[in-house]
């Protein structure tokens, strides 16, 4: 499976490019380590560590829905490609076994190609900073634990979802409730909810044991819930395409593609999964910002505009989902180009995310009692969201997941997206000190990102016109 993954991912680029990704990560980590003293001068170390662990938990949650993935890989082929996870249909091996192997393979991949390079980069920067090698090792271990917990939680949640949607909703709401309880009250310390954070901060063995036990139990439970059925069901639907196409008529020539993409979202249940995948990080972000503003007593205030800038960044994930719902090979037989499909997916992206984005920004404005900032926060959210999604589409086309694991592409992605997002973040932090100046600069950034969005949208044609719809 490891070989299969490596060959599949490196199929669109060179093998070297695929293996450059960990080096790029190590380089970023080295830079963070190099500027460590400056970093902790502005942000206290415990806060940095909690933020890092929350990010890793989110990362694990966003990549670990293996029960969905396994089922989808079995239900339909990826064009001309078949995966080993579907082997139980022809070979004497259980689906539980191949799914858990797939899970372990992916976990191993992330440990080796994502988390370890980050630790290596920090270790390499050690001579320029005041931390110790032992603390890097400790961070590496605790971050692996947090990431594994996110991965195991997502695996378990997705397995429950396939058995009972109601139970899934109850569990998800319960989990969000616990997070809220942890953020808004002192009743449930965050270290109890995510014991690896406790392990990082307090260095106690009990937290280590509890985390490992949680990961094992959740992973085992998820595997037990994986169904062994290979019976193909035959789903029938009343004709709905023409009605959908009429609804999208205002988009002219894009209407048939939008109708098809929308039906895909509905019938694959991806709309629910995507809305959930988008909403959960936003709930996390909302709670984290509330937590940072109200409990740590730090001087900086993370306002609604700061939040709005971050909301936009999550768009990458949604655009990536849109590219994973269905095969695209049949488009090669039709008079259509790859750029046209990319643009149709971007229109769908805006239609799916605009409402959720606005809802969360407005909600945050109410929580922060900053409704008056919405006039700036909403344009910030929409411009960062549009800019990030269009930049992702420009750089990765229809193969987002694959290209974002490619070293040079991830480097270009970071160069294009991180500076404007950081600029908006810093300007929003200075908003209370220099309101007029910050507001003018943020407005300028919004205009700049809007212009770049239009430019990159136009450049998609030239960049992807020769691309094929073949996945492999």
């Amino acid at each position, binding site marked *: 499976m490891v070989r299969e993954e490596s060959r599949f991912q490196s199929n669109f680029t060179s093998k070297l490019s695929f293996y450059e990704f960990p080096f790029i990560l190590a380089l970023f980590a080295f830079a963070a380590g190099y500027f460590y003293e400056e970093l902790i001068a502005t942000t206290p170390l415990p806060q940095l560590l909690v933020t890092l662990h929350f990010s890793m938990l989110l990362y694990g949650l966003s990549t670990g829905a293996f029960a969905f993935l396994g089922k989808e890989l079995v239900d339909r082929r990826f064009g001309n490609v078949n995966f080993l996870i579907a082997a139980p249909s022809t070979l004497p091996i259980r689906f539980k076994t191949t799914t858990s192997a797939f899970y372990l393979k992916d976990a191993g991949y992330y440990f080796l190609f994502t988390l370890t390079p980050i630790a290596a980069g920090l270790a390499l920067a050690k001579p320029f900073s005041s931390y110790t090698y032992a603390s890097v090792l400790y961070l590496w271990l605790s971050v692996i634990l947090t990431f594994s917990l996110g991965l195991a939680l997502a695996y378990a949640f997705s397995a429950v979802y396939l058995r009972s949607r109601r139970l899934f909703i109850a569990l998800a709401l319960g989990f969000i409730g616990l997070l809220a309880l942890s953020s808004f009250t002192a009743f449930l310390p965050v270290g109890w909810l995510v014991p690896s954070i406790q392990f990082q901060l307090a260095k106690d063995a009990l937290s280590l044991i509890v985390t490992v036990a949680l990961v094992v139990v959740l992973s085992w439970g998820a595997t037990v819930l994986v169904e062994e059925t290979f019976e193909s069901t035959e789903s029938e639907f009343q*004709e709905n*395409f023409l009605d959908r196409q009429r609804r999208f008529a205002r988009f002219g020539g894009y209407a048939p593609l939008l*109708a098809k993409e929308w039906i895909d979202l509905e019938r694959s249940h991806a709309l629910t999964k995507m809305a959930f995948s988008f909403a959960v990080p936003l709930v996390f972000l909302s709670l984290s910002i509330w937590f940072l503003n109200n409990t740590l007593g730090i001087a900086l205030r993370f306002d609604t505009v700061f939040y709005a800038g971050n909301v936009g960044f999550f768009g990458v994930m949604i655009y990536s989902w849109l590219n994973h719902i269905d095969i695209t090979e*049949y488009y*090669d037989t*039709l*008079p*259509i180009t790859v750029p046209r499909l990319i643009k149709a997916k971007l229109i769908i992206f805006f239609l799916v995310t605009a409402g959720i984005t606005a809802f969360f920004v407005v909600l945050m404005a109410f929580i922060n009692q900053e409704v008056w900032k919405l006039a700036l926060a909403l344009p910030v959210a929409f411009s960062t969201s549009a800019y990030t999604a269009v930049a992702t589409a420009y750089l990765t086309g229809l193969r987002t997941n694959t290209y974002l694991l490619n070293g040079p592409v991830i480097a270009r992605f970071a160069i294009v997206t991180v500076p404007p997002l950081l600029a908006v973040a810093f300007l929003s932090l200075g908003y209370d000190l220099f309101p007029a100046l910050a507001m003018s600069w943020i407005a300028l950034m919004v205009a700049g990102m809007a212009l770049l969005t239009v430019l990159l949208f136009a450049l998609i044609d030239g960049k992807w016109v020769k691309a094929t719809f073949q996945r492999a």
Partner: protein
Amino acid sequence: MGLPDLAAAVPDPIISVEGLSKAFTGTQALDRVSFKVPRGAFFGCFGPNGAGKSTLLRILTGQLEPTAGGAKVLGYAPGTDTVPLKRNVGIVPESESPPSFLTGLEYLEFVCRLRGLSDSAARIRKWLEYFDMADKQDTLCKDMSKGTRQKIMLASAFIHRPPLLFLDEPFINLDPIYQRRVRDFLVDYVKSGGSIFMCSHILEVADKVCTDALIMDRGEVLAQGPIASFRTNGHDLADTFLDIIETRGAQRRAKPATS
């Protein structure tokens, strides 16, 4: 719906290929391939697995860029005039993979809309009836049998009645009844002025329907000409094909010893 003369305003030859080569990493898929397909031909492209047939078809339909050489299809350069070319041809790919979450009926509607066809309802009804798919028209494509998916791909390639069809193993997964039905349709289509470029391993069928043939192996053209030229000395197309491929294999095996 009316059936205009398919040969009207179509260039002759309808396909011309000159020195076409395609190299993948470590593999020469096509090596200086040249041939012409006359207008109104039922042109068969044959060869063992890995001969380069599907690669050739994908280059001629603008799905792949050649490494060297060029081609003209209906007067279009496939690599640059891809969209106008695809508007004017029908393509049946090697693997039957219609979209997962549309029903058969919806996929044909989708194809008609993308092709800008005005009388789509009549066209769709005709092809659903032709393949007896009325009871399967509301089934999601991903849940269809391979044969039904193949029928959907065939219908989507025929529905706009183009002057040229590219078919990669069109009879695969079809039962004998529908193999015969598709074969009859293709013969009538050529009689009405249409042209076909077909890759197939089913030489018995090809022998009956093709007017011209090209035999390839390992990216090279080994023989080409009217189908009659492959039926000599009491041999049929299959016999001649096997002779040519075995002779070439023997030459290849002998080559290292002599060089």
